[in-house]
């Protein structure tokens, strides 16, 4: 199939120069068969790599949806904090694995738990991974799944068995903005598909590490996770994003989560990409009856990080916790948009954010809760707090509520400000040096969120990283 035939299916209306280039890159990349990696990743799966038509159709659908909607601009209210300019320099096609730097386990953060899957520029690296042995837990590389499905005569469902993003994007009940997830769908070549069987109990179950190595001009990294948890299971998932080397990576991550009835999930997400990295992220989650999902996000790295979170509470008495901590320094931008959609009655939301902006950084958290007609008995609370720790830093915390039913309880609180002078003086008067006192207070500020991390080893690692990050961005003195 020629490039022109491929593009013919994707009408690049109303093409901005950027989306037109995306379409052109897509067409060029898919002109032949699936792009293949020329590295060790192939060792895992030696079967002939077929690009199933269904997968291709799905990618094209995603691309078409993206062309129709266009990428966000800074004029979009929900995107005004994100620096979208780096997109102009990015090559959207994943990099060829050929130029990848050599990496060993020593280059990665210490593993938490026994099973770990490492993805390099979005593609599974078996030599760095240790597969799970937990009963009831199946982790599959999506790349392999596609081939398997074809071999078994089952229509492959795109990048693995992941829920198609186009479907989710068209879902009226989810008034979300999945444009970057569509971009992921169009280009991702691999990802982690995790299925947890009914009744499984696995507290620290799987750890995913996504390592970005490529320079954005050479190619983009598309981490993809599809996480399905069956009824009555109780699991924990750790998801990390890091960089290897100091290139300006472009990372565009898409994660979808489904939690079945009576299941309980702890999802830990740590973004520690490099100082020049551009990180986009879209997380969608659906909760069934009496399901419990807690997502803990710690944002430390990247030059610019944007996370878009959509949680749908579809089942009665389902419960979601969205906990975020973000520490920005220098000229970093951290922006999170988190929407929880209460569709079923008697569901609960707990949204809690603590952000510290030092140096010239900008830290934003936009937390929105929609209570739909019929979602009576909704109980939601939002506590969003920002701390300004640099003279040119910016904090923006915004709780939003949209309520279309009676009989709900929705609390919200948002504050943005400096460290409390009285607290500081109290600590100094006890003999603590200024540096220690400031660090302690910033620490205490984040503690509300960090203390909810129930995995001791992970918490220890995160606390160590936070301590390091805060030490660097201690421009606080100027303010006090």
């Amino acid at each position, binding site marked *: 199939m020629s490039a022109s035939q491929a593009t013919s299916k994707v009408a690049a209306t109303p093409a901005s120069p950027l989306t037109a280039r995306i379409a052109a890159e897509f067409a060029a990349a898919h002109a032949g068969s699936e792009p293949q990696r020329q590295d060790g990743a192939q060792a895992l799966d030696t079967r002939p790599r077929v690009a199933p038509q269904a997968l291709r159709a799905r990618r094209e659908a995603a691309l078409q949806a993206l062309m129709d909607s266009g990428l966000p601009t800074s004029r979009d209210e929900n995107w005004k904090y994100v620096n979208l300019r780096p997109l102009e320099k990015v090559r959207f096609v994943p990099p060829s694995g050929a130029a990848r730097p050599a990496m060993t386990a020593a280059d990665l953060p210490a593993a938490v738990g026994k099973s770990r899957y490492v993805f390099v520029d979005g593609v599974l690296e078996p030599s760095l991974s240790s597969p799970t042995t937990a009963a009831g837990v199946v982790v599959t590389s999506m790349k392999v799944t596609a081939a398997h499905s074809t071999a078994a005569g089952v229509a492959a469902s795109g990048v693995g068995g992941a829920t198609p993003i186009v479907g989710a994007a068209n879902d009226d009940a989810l008034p979300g903005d999945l444009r970057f997830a569509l971009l992921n769908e169009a280009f991702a070549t691999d990802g982690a598909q995790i299925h947890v069987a009914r009744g499984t109990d696995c507290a620290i179950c799987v750890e995913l590490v996504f390592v970005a190595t490529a320079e954005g001009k050479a190619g983009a990294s598309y981490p993809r996770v599809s996480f399905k948890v069956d009824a009555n299971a109780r699991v924990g998932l750790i998801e990390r994003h890091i960089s290897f080397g100091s290139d300006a990576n472009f990372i565009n991550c898409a994660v979808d989560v489904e939690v079945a009835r009576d299941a309980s999930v702890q999802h830990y997400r740590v973004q520690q990409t490099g100082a020049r990295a551009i990180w986009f992220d879209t997380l969608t989650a659906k909760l069934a009856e009496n399901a419990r999902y807690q997502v803990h996000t710690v944002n430390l790295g990247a030059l610019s990080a944007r996370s878009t979170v959509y949680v749908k509470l579809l089942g009665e008495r389902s419960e979601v916790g969205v906990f975020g901590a973000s520490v920005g320094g220098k000229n970093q931008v951290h922006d999170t948009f988190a929407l929880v959609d209460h569709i079923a009655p008697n569901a609960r939301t707990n949204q809690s954010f603590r952000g510290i902006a030092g140096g010239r950084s900008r830290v934003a958290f936009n937390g929105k809760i929609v209570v739909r007609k019929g979602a009576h008995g909704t109980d939601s609370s939002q506590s969003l707090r920002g701390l300004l720790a640099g003279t040119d830093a910016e904090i923006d915390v915004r709780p939003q509520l949209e309520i279309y039913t009676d009989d709900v309880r929705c609390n919200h609180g948002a504050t943005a400000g400096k460290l409390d002078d009285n607290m500081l*003086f109290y600590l100094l*008067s*006890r003999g*603590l040096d*200024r540096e220690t006192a400031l660090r*302690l207070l910033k620490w*205490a500020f984040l*503690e*509300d969120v960090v203390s909810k991390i129930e995995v001791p080893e992970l918490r220890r690692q995160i606390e160590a990283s936070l301590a390091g990050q805060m030490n660097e961005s201690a421009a606080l003195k100027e303010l006090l």
Partner: protein
Amino acid sequence: MLKIDNLQVAVGDNKVLNGLSLEVPTGEVHAIMGPNGSGKSTLAHVLAGRPGYTVTGGSITLDGKDLLALEPEERAHEGVFLGFQYPVEIPGVNNVYLLKAALNAARKHRGLPEVDAFEFLTLVREKMQLMKMDESFLSRGVNEGFSGGEKKRNEILQMLVLEPKLAVLDETDSGLDIDALKVVANGVNTLRSPDRSVVLVTHYQRLLDYVIPDHVHVLVRGKIARSGDKTLALELEKRGYDWVIEEAA
């Protein structure tokens, strides 16, 4: 010995202390009394180095060392302790962590190694027993959710662990019921020794029934208007402050 000489302090354009002079020899307990707005708390804060006060004249020395030249934490290292009238709540900072960090900061200044974990806990438990504090206090955030009385006890606990050279207690008796007052007084009395000085800032005579001062000073409009022994406190209790204010006028 604490020596304050002709101290003048302003808060913004407002002159609060107007040439205050006071000497507290080592080993003595002095009570500073006075009507509202006479500058009692300002004196306590200025001794500890709280920002927001401008010293426009005079001097403060502790054993010959110029306190005004020191940062709050350096004053603490020199042995100054301020017991707050309104102890600050710091959620997220553990009580026991603060105690240990404060003790180690003081030890570091004296050239001593960090305190041994076991010795530290033994010391803290002993002092907590004295202050009739439950062990659960240790694991809570600093003053977080403490009642007024618990906060004051916690201040005295910190003082007992840090063993300051000069303890300045700012209305530590306010808001205490009689049982708590006795516990707090007992804590202060424990600390009394020939090598320590205590400055008790108080509005009422009540505390002085339990902590007997060597001297009592009455502050009026930012100056010491009258000094005496413990009987002065009793007289103030009976007659109020008006007569001292009139005398000072």
